[in-house]
């Protein structure tokens, strides 16, 4: 009886998801195994083999993985730490959380202007370097662009993750902490034994979101370096956008399907690993 009721409750969400997300994905899947406008013909995995031999795709993949590997952990652990700090600050914390959240709302144009004002040819950083006797460059068009993009990502999404962590931390019942304090536990122990295990699922969830946000930096990536930036900052976004501008939807959909497959595989692997370690812990 319970199960049947469950489905009905979830009906709107399921139907909406199917209609606006899953079915479009199936359409995209069809595009990735076919070729030709108008009359599409099934070509099997040809698009995929071509894609994985494409040197620019592999470069973009490598750069994106590199970017993700550096930007994501920093933003997650930074957000976790900061949200714990802010938790203790009550009123002040609220204001700061709002401030840290603002970057998400700032129009992209302003953000890009800001970046150019800092790191452009006539920017603040070069002004400092001139003072120190060094010569400045147009940093945005060098391999330093990678770090600029990282900083942009951190700036934009720190507040986002802080909000999510904060909410979850707030939901940990107070009595847990009070009891631990009464028993004389130190801060570090409290974190390891109480906060972290309870936060862990949220941490994984935030990991997923952080991955999602890597692709939210779509417009910023071009407004900064153009369609063909320095090779250190050529990401999957650029590859996909250039395919879009050359109306090559096969490539785009092949990339998306591959991406999804990789993430699904990783998620399943992680899930199995987690189940495995959980069952081991139970023994």
């Amino acid at each position, binding site marked *: 009886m319970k199960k049947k*009721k469950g489905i*009905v409750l979830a*009906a709107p969400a399921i*139907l909406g998801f199917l*209609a606006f997300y899953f079915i479009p994905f199936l359409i995209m899947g069809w595009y990735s195994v076919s*070729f*030709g*406008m*108008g*009359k599409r013909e099934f070509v099997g995995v040809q698009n995929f083999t071509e894609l994985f031999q*494409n*040197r*620019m*795709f592999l470069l973009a993949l490598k750069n994106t993985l590199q970017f993700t590997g550096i930007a994501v952990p920093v933003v997650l652990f930074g957000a976790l730490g900061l949200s714990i700090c802010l938790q203790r600050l009550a009123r002040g914390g609220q204001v700061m959380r709002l401030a840290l959240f603002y970057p998400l709302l700032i129009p992209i144009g302003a953000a890009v202007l800001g970046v150019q004002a800092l790191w452009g040819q006539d920017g603040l950083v070069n002004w400092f370097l001139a003072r120190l006797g060094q010569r400045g460059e147009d940093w945005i068009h060098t391999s330093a662009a990678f770090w600029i993009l990282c900083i942009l990502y951190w700036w934009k999404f720190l507040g986002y993750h802080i909000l999510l962590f904060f909410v979850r931390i707030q939901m940990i019942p107070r009595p847990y902490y009070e009891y631990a304090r009464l028993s004389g536990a130190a801060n570090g122990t409290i974190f390891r034994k109480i906060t972290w295990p309870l936060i862990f699922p949220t941490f994984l969830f935030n990991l997923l979101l952080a991955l999602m946000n890597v692709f939210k930096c779509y417009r910023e990536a071009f407004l900064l370096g153009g*369609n*063909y930036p320095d*090779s250190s900052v*050529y990401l999957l976004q650029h*590859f996909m956008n*250039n*395919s*879009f*501008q*050359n*109306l*090559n*939807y*096969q*490539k785009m959909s092949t990339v998306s399907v591959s991406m999804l497959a990789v993430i699904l595989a990783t998620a399943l692997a992680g899930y199995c690993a987690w189940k495995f370690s959980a069952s081991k812990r139970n023994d």
Partner: protein
Amino acid sequence: MKRWLLLGIIFVSVICSAGCEERTQKKEELTVVAELEYEVEVKAAAAYYQEKNPGAFVNVEFLPKEETTRRNVLQKKRTDIMSGKGADVFFLSCNIEIAEGYEEPLLENVNKSIESGIFTSLDYYMDQDDYWKSGSYHKKLLEAGQMKGRQYVIPLACNYFVYVGPEDSVIEGKTLWDWMDETGTSGRKELTEGTVFGLGIMNARWQQPAVNYEEKEVLFDPDKWSKFMLEYLAYWQRSHEEEAGGADVYAVANICTLPDQLTGQETKANCQIVPDLNGNKMAAVSTYGAVAMASENKEAAYDFLMLFLNGEIEKEKGASYAGLWYGGTRGAPVEENAWESFMDIHYILNEATRENVVNSFRELDGAYFPGETEQKLYDAGDELILPGREMSGEEIQELVHKAADRAKEQYSMIVRE
């Protein structure tokens, strides 16, 4: 609970029924996507086509010029085209490298767009069309729009740099190196003065074709380009020192914008294409046409496109009909027969000079589609030739090499994508 179930059933059935609807489209409806600057010519052709084929309807959509509007319209147009509707005929332009900067085109790179399969191959229609057997189209230019031997895109207008001077001043050189030597030899100060600037601003064409898309290799050599640029800059400095009044008699300029002083001349003038560093004589395509793969009226689309080449409109309506196509606002014709009218409109040249101009057209080896990389090269060159500030020799060296390397990198990225 029953309410939810009912709602769910309705929801699903709405979606399914929506998918079953038929597409109602007029039998003969052509959608043309064109750049705004060709408004007169395209509308004229559309009117003629509709007149010739009663029941047909040609719907022309122009791409706006204003930057932000254009970007949004292009995004939507690209989605339309990829979803299979959107256009039957493409009538688009390639950027000419000029100081005004780069305008975002609908197709970022024409050759890559051919690879994505959005164009239909026109060989079938071209084989049946007599125009290609007896017409005066410069066949070598067709190669630019071919892939794996099949024709997808047809260049409709081109532009290239020429040297113009008095009849007796013929430049013998085969490559651009030779030309720089010849025009720079002492004793020909007027020649130097008239030609030196033109040689510099065509720096995006110093090595064309820059890319071989079929073999996926980059032909652009940054070292060659840098070496030539540095020598050119020295040459430019030297030639600057004296005024000899040569600009009235000699020039190196784009064929579409020949300087005024050369038109209206009484004596016969010489006209030669300026070769590139490797001796190639390439034209940049300014306008091109194609038919979409998703089109349901491919033959009609092809016929419409050919109206701009086969001179049918002119034959029926007379030469004074407004909106005949001779290369548009910034291109020269791609077929010989149209050159007479082109020269009538653009220049006042005497008979003998005309012959030389058409001869220069015949010398073309091929064509290429210019893109953003060419504009970037031009911008870099512009900054070096007419710097806004004082630059040390070292700085100039660095800028030159950086520009060349970046162009090479961009070309290789494009070709490998």
